[in-house]
């Protein structure tokens, strides 16, 4: 599978309402307590109306992997997930700075890099933020699908404009 086919969790800013349920669920899924500092997905609200959840986008040539001075981070060829070798990682945080999306942080207890693993530890492999998002703003998708949707949306807008011109 090409890397473009790797699936990651993407949020739709039109749908996201900033309720932070994804943060609650992520921390709970991983650590059985509630604390956004333990969440691999974080919400940003910019007043008055912008809300968006951000998590690892499984970049091509991920800057976090490049930045790691101890080669603790690797990207899975198969899934695109960033794996953290907890023995190698010393929590220096170069990866945190390198990530353009703030999608990596340092785990408050383990003091090692913490990043979305798409809930691959679960038998059902279902990312829990996606499962719980009440707005269906989160989805497990890939760049090909997102690109397709972008093309379709823009052409539909053209179509709509053309129809309106005809009728009115």
């Amino acid at each position, binding site marked *: 599978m090409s890397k473009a086919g790797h699936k990651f969790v993407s949020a739709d800013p039109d749908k996201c309402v*900033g309720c932070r*349920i994804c943060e609650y669920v992520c921390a*709970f899924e991983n650590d059985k*307590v509630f604390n956004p500092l333990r969440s691999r997905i974080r919400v940003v609200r910019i007043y*008055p109306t912008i809300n968006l959840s951000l998590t690892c986008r499984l970049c091509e040539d991920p800057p976090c992997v490049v930045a790691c001075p101890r080669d603790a981070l690797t990207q899975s060829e198969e899934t695109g997930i960033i794996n953290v070798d907890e023995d190698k990682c010393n929590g220096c945080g170069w990866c945190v700075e390198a990530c353009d999306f703030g999608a990596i942080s340092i785990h408050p207890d383990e003091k090692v890099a913490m990043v979305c693993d798409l809930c691959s530890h679960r038998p059902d492999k279902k990312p829990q933020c996606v499962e719980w998002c*009440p707005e269906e703003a989160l989805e497990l998708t890939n760049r090909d699908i997102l690109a397709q949707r972008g093309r379709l949306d823009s052409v539909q807008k053209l179509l709509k404009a053309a129809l309106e011109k005809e009728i009115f």
Partner: protein
Amino acid sequence: MHGYAGRILYVDLPTGATRTEPLSEGFAKKYIGGSGFGIKMLLDNQEPGIDPFDPANPLIYIVGPLAGTMAPTSGKFSAFAKSPESNFLGEGYSTGYFGAELKRAGYDIVVMKGRCEKPSYLFIDDDSVQLMDASHLWGKTTWETEALIREDLGDYYIRVAVIGQGGENLVRIASIINDRNRAIGRTGLGAIMGAKNLKAVAVRGTHDITVADPDGLKEHCLELYEEMSHGSKTVKYRTLGTPANVLTLNAAAALPTRNYQSATFEGAERVSGEYLNEHFVVKIQGCSACPMRCSHICVIPEGPWKGTAARIPYEPLMALGPFCGNDRLEGVIKAKELCDRYGIDAIGTGIIIGFAMECFEKGLIDKKDTGGIDLRFGNYEAIVEMTEKIALRQDVGDLLAEGVKRASEKIGRGSEEFASHIKGVETTGYDLRGLKTCALGYAVSRRGADHQRHGSYGHDLSGEVDRFKVEKGRGKLVMEDEDNYSIFDSLILCKFNRRLWDYDRMARIYREVTGIPMTGEEMHKAGERITNLARIYNIREGLTRKDDHLPPRVMKLPIPSGVAKGSFVSQKELDFLLDDYYEARGWTKEGVPTQEKLKELGLDAYMRIVHKKPEKKEVTRR
């Protein structure tokens, strides 16, 4: 203990000295959280009978046991102090992100006493609690202050509860604002912060919140989330939002209009939830851990106020709209935005302006008083200008900033007869003349005119009872509503999902989160205990039966038109309702809880407050 942070924080504002006390499990179970904790702490930490602006009036912030967990709508927090509007219980609730942050900082209760020597804000950074200089923030709006504090402290995720110029100027309807458009709006608690020189409380919390039964809670939340995000019982809040009430209440002739001159508004369509959503709502946002989300963010698309954004629920819409004879929503949105920025209660502001408009039209105040504003009903620009004048205490705004009760006493000349308040707190959006169960709920509400302590309009509007009649049994209905809402306000849950909860379910989530044994019956009893505790507090501060009153208009001016035409609440009817309610409560004819009732509820410690014995005066105090 799970769920609870397990600590009470005391802050001495003059010195910045702090101490903490553990929260005991017995205390937690008896008073639950939110309102139960707040009323109890106020009783035990406030000198009886003091002036609300006295530095010794404690300001208390409280979260509930669920805050910081994924229990739906658990992000709420509350504030308590003796109210500068009513001189009775001051309490208010807000949502957003602040409450969960305070819990993570490690506190269930924060008691702030005294007055800061200079303008300051309190920074609660987990275990580190310090007073910070706020001289550069004094005079700034709530929005500017929140942004500056985050900038100063260098952390975007810090949450801030803040006052604007309203609180600084001791406007008696001043609010506390958090997350920009969420407010502890009622009973003037922002002015208490102002009197304390306390500009804001900023919080950063990094502790984990643990729960007793993680798997049980998760399962329960899955059910609740599904009902809240897709179920029929919350659909109103998810779609049109509370402004759907405009047309419903207008059709029922229960929409307070032009300072209670009418109960129907000819411009209702233009200020309806339908119209608002079609023309102004650009985004519906959610609060922490809420799968229902109801924050309808409205933006004015054109004209001089283009780009103005405000969250518009029904109550401010009613107050700044129909109550002022205003059918221009951009006026409502702009005035609401100013209320949030200056930190004044948007409901109170609208009710006060409606009162002032009637004064103006009757010639009791004129353009000299208003600073040239043509303060007639329906003048939406005047509403916006007066909102600013109230917050800044300019011209007649200085007098109106005292609230309708005090303003009408000063203006006199019959204006008391159309001042719309109960216990000094301005009325809210249900015309009580044709909603008689609801009228009782308002009359006895512990924080003054209020729909949020009982929600008894539900019985009247659903047709479950004859809303134009008084009869035996209404007292019990209101009592049950109040006790139920006392638990909503203690857990603290959002009442917009009230149809999903009964006492058993409340007890279930309480057990799942805290691990403390609790039954539905015990929860019910706790609700009754908390409501009685509030009564004890108010009695201690001087409340008598005559304070359980209704505004003169409700009792003297029959509804002029619509399906409720001719309806009003007579003194005889009010007395009948009060008697029925006091009897249902097990209170005396004077509205005082009996010794038996106090014993039954485990409130014996407060016996001497309500049944004074001359030889013993001291009350229990921490």
